[in-house]
């Protein structure tokens, strides 16, 4: 059941991340632009 619920949740999370990403890009949030984590992207 949880696995099924994770599908719409992931969909909404990905899309909300696009809104938050725009917010940080427009604000030029330093931590985002300086890329202080060495994490890869999916």
């Amino acid at each position, binding site marked *: 059941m949880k696995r099924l619920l994770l599908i719409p949740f992931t969909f909404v999370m990905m899309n909300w991340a696009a809104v938050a990403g725009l917010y940080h890009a427009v604000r030029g949030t330093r931590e*985002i632009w300086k890329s202080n984590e*060495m994490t890869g992207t999916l």
Partner: protein
Amino acid sequence: MPEVVFWTSLIFVSYVYLGYPLILALWKRIAARPIHKTDFQPKVTLIVAAYNEKANIRRKIQNCMSLDYPRSHLEILVSLDGPTDGTDVLMFKLASQGIHLLYSPNHKGKAAAINSAAEKASGEILVFVDARQTIDRGAIRELVANFADPTIGAASGELVLVDRQSNKEASDGVGLYWRYEKFIRSCESAIHSVIGVTGAIYAIRKELFVPLSEGTILDDVAIPMAVVLAGRRVIFDSSARVFDQVAPRADAEYKRKVRTLSGNFQLLVLMPTLLLPWANPVFFQFYSHKILRLFVPYALVLLYVSNLFLLRNPYVTFLALQTVWYGCALLGYFACNESTGSLFKPKEGRI
């Protein structure tokens, strides 16, 4: 008016998530380009750009030393970007094992660490890997074999997300999304080039490496897109695999996505040429895969709001389906975040 908004939004969202993959699948069937992959063993530099990776770096070095690639043709280069957790102390000890070490006392960001490593590298092929994931023993050999084809400028490996509990390939929300994404990438690769590679493992001909702008977030999109703009292909090879575990908490995955999507906006500022159809050979794919997705959340809002003004059949069915969908999303949120309420409010500096 609500009907126009409703149908426009529905068609837009359907195109991005269903129409585009369908077009790719048909396109691949009709006009797939071959990749002439043969056994090919040029000198390779394996680059690990690392910041605070004390927990992972020893395992990563052992992993790199056990790869199935002639040691005489494999240079391992670790580029440390001003770590503060003792990664540098650990690496100075490990450096005697034949690892080349580049050390910056100041934290300048991943782009700077990659640039300095690429400048020092002696290999014809640069392979970039992250510190956390485990590289499959034969992955470098598989990845590099693609460069026997002179049209290939860069190659991406496959990141396999493993479920922490079952130790099998993840098939829940993020795992499913990642499989869907890999399907799109495999189609794009067969047609011409992927739009972005897997940050966990990708390779590029050194001669095609263009230094990254300071603060570049998505090296794994900026580097391959520069290769495409230079007229070469960027392909996806699912036989070159690395393994990682799905982020244990959804907020970790969320932060990663915010970074990625913020990086997409940054990329448009850093590489505006990508928006020009006459300059970008994969313009259609770039728009469909990267740009249009940025507008989907707004289309989803319009879809729901316009539906509220259309309370008759068949629209009322759509409204019910949408409501159930978002209700399930909310339940999913509670199911995997029992102890946190901070998912959609990331604190500044933590992303």
